[in-house]
Each structure stands twice: as C-alpha cells, then as structure tokens.
C-alpha cells in the first residue's frame, strides 16, 4: 500500500527529475527551470534539494553525467537517463497512479 511519507516527498522530486530527463540530457539548472515552467511556476525547485537528488540518482545508476559545453560556452554537467532510470520511472509512475487512485476514492467519491 503506497504511503505518503518523507521518502515519498523526496522520491517525488526524484521522479519529476527522471521525467524531465526523458526529453533528453539536461544540466541541473535546465532541469529546475523546465520543472518550474511546466508547473507554471507553482513549483519552486530548491538547489538544496535538486543537486543532492541528482548526485544520489547518479550513485544509484538511474542517471549518468557527462561534461559538455553549455549555451553560455561554459563547462556544464549534463545528466542523462539510463536504462535503470527509465525502469525506475515506470515503477514510480505506476505507484503514484495507485496512490492517487486510493486517495481519490476517499476524497472524491462518486
């Protein structure tokens, strides 16, 4: 049974980042901007959560990084989804769906 916990909150950012990266490799700043724009700036991505999240997912092998040159002509670290990350995203999405279904049945009956 899915539960709403601290892990889930943190996991939610993870899964949002993973989703973002399905559109192609991006650096950290671009990930944050993309998420903020997609949610119409209702979601603010804290740097303090973003980068540790990226590093953790890289450690777990869900994403991998590569240094490249950014639009400013500076060295930037680009993150890319791995096969493991793609699988993780599928699992998390399904769990989220199940969670939403359960909560909806209670909060929005009929």
């Amino acid at each position, binding site marked *: 049974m899915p539960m709403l916990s601290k892990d889930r909150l943190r996991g939610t950012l993870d899964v949002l980042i993973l989703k973002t990266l399905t559109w192609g490799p991006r650096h950290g700043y671009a990930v944050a901007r993309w998420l903020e724009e997609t949610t119409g700036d209702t979601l603010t991505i804290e740097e*303090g959560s973003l*980068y*540790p999240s990226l590093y953790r997912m890289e450690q777990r092998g869900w994403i991998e990084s590569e240094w490249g040159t950014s639009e*400013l002509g500076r060295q*930037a*670290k680009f993150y890319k989804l791995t096969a493991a990350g793609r699988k993780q995203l599928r699992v998390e999405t399904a769990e989220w769906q199940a969670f939403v279904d359960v909560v909806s049945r209670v909060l929005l009956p009929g």
Partner: protein
Amino acid sequence: MTAVRRARFFRRSVPDAVATELDFHVAMIEHDLVRAGTDPAEARRIAAARFNNRPTITAECRRIGQQTERTVRRTLHVQEFIDDLRFAARQLLKSPGFALIAVLTLAIGIGATTVIFSAVDAVLLRRFAFAHPERAVFVNELVMHQDGNVSAGNYVDWVAMSRSFGGLAAEEFRNVNLTTSDAPERVLAGRVSANFFPMLGVAPLRGRVFAGSEDQPGNDDVVILSEGLWRSRYGGDPGIIGRQVQLDDRRHTVIGIMPASFDPTVNDEQLWVPIAFTPDRRAQHDEHYLTVIGTLKPGVTIAQAQADMDGVSRIEAGRFPKDVTGAHVVGLTTFITAQYRTPLLLLQGAVLLVLLIACGNVANLQLARSSARAREMAIRAAIGAGRGRIGRQLLTENLLLALVAGAVALGLARLGIAALRANAPQGIPRLEQAHIGGGVMLFAIAAALGSALVSGLTPALRSTRRDLQTTLRESGRQNQGAVRDRLRTALIVAEVALSLPVLIGAGLLLRSAMHLQHVDPGFDLDNVVMARVILPVGTPAEHIVTVQRLVDDLAARPGIVSAAMTSQAPMVPGGTSNGLLPEGKPFSQENLVQSRLRLVTPGYLGTMRLRLKQGRWFTDQDVAGAPLVMVISEAVAKAMFPGENALGKRIGCCEPNSYKTVIGVVGGVRSDGPAQEIVPEFYLPLAQAPADAWSWIGNIVSVTVRANTADPAAATAAIRAAAHDIAPGTPVYRVSTMRAALASTLEVDHFNTLLLVALGVIGMLLAAIGIYGVVGYFVTLRTHEIGIRMALGATRGNVLRLLAWQGVRPIAIGIVVGTALATWATTLLRSSLYGVTPRDPLTFALVIGVLLLAGVLATVIPARRATRVDPAATLQA
C-alpha cells in the same frame, strides 16, 4: 557499464566538479535575470542571495559524489581485471602448446609441493585433539640419563607430591587377545588411569569414559574402543555399547568409543581398559613400565614443571636410592614429532627448490614467447597502453596459467597424497591423516600465486622495458642484439644452482643407504625366519617344557636347519632391559650397566650364527637347579670389566640376591637395525629364567628358524604347523624373514631417500629441459650468423664449440653457486646420514659430474642443429 568507461577519460576531482557545476548554476541564474532586464550588479546580488546555503549543498554533493567515485573505481578495477583475464585466456588458447607445457610444469611442481606440505601439516602442524595440546607433556623417568618408563610407585608419589600439573595420567601398553564370538584377534590395549580421558579433555564419540570407581581391582571389567576398531571389527554398530567382549580370559563390558582423532601417544592403541593398580603395585618402585602423560597447570612452563619434578625426585631418591634417579618433563608434541621434523622440513625445502626450477622453466618459455610477441607489445604501447598496464596484462596471463596449474595440481596432489599414505612406512605418527584440508588448500593457492609471480615477473619487466621504436623498425628480422641475453643466462645459472643441493642431498642419502647394506649386523641373517608365539597359560615350568617341545618339533621338520626360542628377536622393537651389577661392587646407579635381556634356548647361537668370542655357549645341562650362568656381549664385558677377563666373573641381576657366572662372551649385534649402534646385551638360558621374567615378556616368545633356502614359505608353514601340534589354537603372528625385519628398521630412511632422489631427478630433468630450451633459442637466433661464419670457412667443430660455450658457461657458474649452497644445506642432513659425511667429496664430485653431463647434453643436442645449417640457404634468406 558506460559510466565506468566514461570515468576512465574524465578524471576530474569531485570537489572541483561540484564547484564547477554550482558556479554554472549561479551564472545561469544571473544570465536569466540579466536577460529579463535586471541590472548585472543587481543580478549578481540576487543570485548570490538565492544561493546562501551553498556550503551545505556543496558538502552533501561532495559526500555523495565521492562515494560514487569509490564504487566506480572499484568496479573499474574488477572490470579491467576481467578484461585482462579474458584477453589472457584468448592469448593462451592461441598457443595451446605453450599453455599445456607451462600448465603441466607448474602443476607438477605445485602438486609435489602440496603433497609434501600435506604431510608436514598432518605430522607437524596439526593440533592434537586435546583441549590444550600445548600444555600436554610426557613425564619420563630417567634411567642412566635416558628417558624411560615409570614405575607405578613413582607415578603414585608424583601425583601426590608434584605441584605443576592439572593432572597426571598413567598408561601401560599391552597386547591382548580380543574375542567377541569368533577367532581371537591380537590388539594393542592401553591400560589407563581413570583421569586419562577427562584430563586431556576429549569427549567420547559414544558412551562414556571410565568412572573413578572402575579404576579399582575387581571392578575394572569395562572397555572403551577406538573408533578404528569399532568400525573395522564391529561395523560401526552403536549397539555394541553395553555388550560384552572377552579380553584374554576375562569378559569386559563396552562402555564407550573414542573418536579417531584422539591419538595421544600415537601408538595406535585400539582399546582402553582401566589400569586398576593393586596396593602392591602402588608400592612398587623397581618395575618401570608406565607412560605418564600430564597437563601443565595454566601459566606453568615446562622448565618450572621440570624444577618441580627435580625436587620431587630428590625426595624420592632419598627413599628409594636403588630405583629412582630423576624425572624428565618433555612437551608431548615435541617428543612425538621431534624425529620427523628435520626430514620433513628438508623434503619441503627440496620440493620448493624443484618448484622454483619449474617456475624458472616457465619464465624461460615466457621469455621465448615474449620475444615473439615483442611486436604485439610495441603496437599496444604505441596506441597508448601504459607500461604498468602491459606489465599487468602479462602478470594476468601468468596468474591464469597458475590458477589452471593450481587446479590441476590439486588433482595431482590428491593422487599423490593417496600414494604417499599407501606407500609410506608404518609408524610415522599421524601421517595417515594427511589430506587436502583448508590449510593445505590455502598452501596450494599460495604456491600457485607465488609461482605466477616468480615465473611472470621477469618476463613482464623485460617486455615493458623494450624500446618500442626499435622493435617496430626491426619488423621482420629477429633482433641480433638480444643474442647475449643476460636474463636467459641467469635463469640457467639459477636452475643449475637450485637443483644441485637437492641432487647432492639425494646422493648422500643413497651413499648412506649403500653403506647400511654392508653394515655387519653381528649375525648371519640369511635364511632366518621368525615369528611370535603366545604360549598357552601355564606355570614357568610348563612354559619351559612347551618351548622345548616346540623347538624339538621344529628342528625335526624338513627344510629346517635349526630352531631356537628367544624372549626377544633382533630387529624387532621392544624388549626389556636390566641393570647388571658386578659382584663385589656396592649397589648404586653408577655401578649398574644397563643391558638388554635375551632369554634363549641353547640352539640360539647356532641358529643366528652369533660369534662366540670367548668361553662357551649354553647347553642342555644349563637348567633350573644347575649353577646359574650368563653370556654377555663384548660391549657389556668392556663396560663391566675393562681390561679384565670377563669369564668366570659373577654378575648380579634380574632377581634379588642372585649372581650368575659369565661363561661366555659373544660379539655385539645391531639389534635395532644397521643404522643404530650395537646394543649392550646379555643372554640367559630360558630354562633358568628368573620367575618374574615370564611376566616381563607376557608369555610371548619369538621362534627363530634357520631354513636351508632363502624362500621363507617352508619355514613359515613349519612354524605354524609345529605351534598347532604343540597346542592347537596357539596364536602365531608377525611372521617375517630376518631380512624383512632388518629392512623395516630402515623403512623411514629408505622412504626419505626415495623421495629425495625422485625430487633430485625431477629437478635435474627440469633444469636440463630449461638449458635445452635456452640454447635452442640462441641457436635459432644465430642461424644467420652461423651461416656467414661457415661460409667464411668455420668448421662444424668451431661452430659447435662456439654455441656450446654459450650453454656451458652458465652451467659452470651455476655449479659453483650450487656447490656453495649444497655445502651449507647438506649439514642439515647430518642426522640422517650413516657412514658418510655431509660433505663427502666423492658424492659431490659424482653428482656434479652427472649434472654437468646432463647440462652438456642439453647444450650439445640443440647446438648440433646449428652445424647442419646450409650456409647458402641462410644467406639467401
């Protein structure tokens, strides 16, 4: 694992990466703000403000990043190693001939080393199956400054007076007839005090050990079986406990079974019964027949226990001046394994030398291969492989070789250990427990890894040092500059130097064995057959009649020249020893001459062909009631009556206030075998045997028979038939020719010799193969040059000499180095050598000659190939 591959090319430190990444983030915020119209200075201020928690982020990212990096690096190494291994396997499969020879050479070396180590492990290293083997000691009585058995009276007093021992237990060994329902079987019994098992801290496999109340006369009809006897005789039936078995003439109840690992004295006793001293026994100080085992109290050293026992002995010597001289405390493990330590460690050393020679040969093969692969290596270096990387690749190939060789070696070692256990002489303690256990397995793996390092390091270093430009430019033609290849020459020197000490050691042992063949045993042992006979229960007078009838019956049978009885035949361990006191001297330990007793029938002199030096031998008139007579050996005569005529002198021995007149002196006999000194002995007529003597010898006598042929079959049959005629069912056992008995005293020595000779020959062959390979390689390299020389008029002889010198010079250097090594190493053999000194010049000369011959042959055969070079063909090539 793409992340891993990428990490190889991007080696940016984690802190640097984190800083760069976050800097970029800040720059991007500023950039977006400026683009949206904010003043650049203001934008910088806002960006910095948003990032006020940067130190925290940096710290956390660094932590995770560094963890990731460690994991990646580990995976990277494993991955590289697997790549190397895979590559190595492909390379080796490409040259299966090389791989096969290298694997076999190493496998034989590692396998042989492992077999010997398994013996070292079983005999020397394995802990005894006691609770505290390091505290177990033997406490021996000193008889004429030698370790001897203990009297019951002394044992009882030691238990009461000593302070150093957690316990002292006594054991007496005795052969008994074990009867269950069928025919009796002769087994060795240990009669032990009740504390024997609890003191050593060993639990029975089944059942229980003796209770204190069972160690009392009349209450002692219980028996504990060894696991071996339980399995062989009773098929491992647990129901045996509680059942009755007959030992000699008494029924005993089986109460327990001791595990096979319990082997305190390595005498292989097959069962135990309580010793149950009678009050008489407890007071007896003059009969020494007990083995005393003790355990030291925690923290007490052997030296402290010895000091304690010295004090006890002083008090005892005051009370029993005739019978007590001292006690000797000696570590049980040390005492049992001492005599096997040096030979086993020497064999281990020798086999390690052989393994090193084998490694040398594989290194040699590697060198030959690495020359052929020089181009491959140069190309790999040219496309960016580092020196360390190539070196590691070559070491990996060796590692793979060694691992395969190690696996094959374990298979060979399994066979080798089985062969060792089947063929090793009886009586090497605990050798039958040699097997491939954890320790031996680890040793084999270590030997394999060591071999990989030794045989791979030199070629690896050399390959990486080659100048790659030169190699690439040389392309087709072989490198002429490598002709004087120092490394290869050094290998020959090393192999010869290592094989020489092993060969010389083997040579010395062989010479020693040959010497022993010609040692005079003091009697004529050809055509003599002997057997032990247990006399039917009876009085001494009845025994004498039985013996006389048996001898007469035997002597009358066809094919038998003469027959005799003795309490103890030569070449058979055991027997009793007595102190002889010349008449007129006061009784004291100094005046006693310890001498081995032989009770014999008159026919003994003629049957054994002892040499009568003086006086006469026993006749049929030397019987009970006639004057008591004695014959002594020359050694006894010399010790008791130096410079005097021993004939007619009277000697006190064996029973109170009894003097026997010396009527003859016979030549000494090497009763413990040709490798041992002549034993001082005295002979008494069996018909005048002291009353106690029958209990000393336990009603067992040895019959000795001289047949008229060397074939023992007729004599053996005669002995069995005669025993059956006199008393049906009389046990006859240990039937053997005197020659076989003599050989068995040398069995351990011969076995060592055999092993060392085998190792020496293997070492020499390996060295010869190595030399052959190196010289053959030189010849191939110089074919072109030889062609030129021959075209310019060099004769075949010139060419042969030129090439032979290239092999003979390192052999000569190796012999010089090896001789130096051998002069040191052979001194370790001193205690195993008889009639030859450790630096016997003849052995050294012969062995060096043989090795030189083998080396020269290994040089000349490939060198001759060079002389068949066709100059025209070579020059056109």
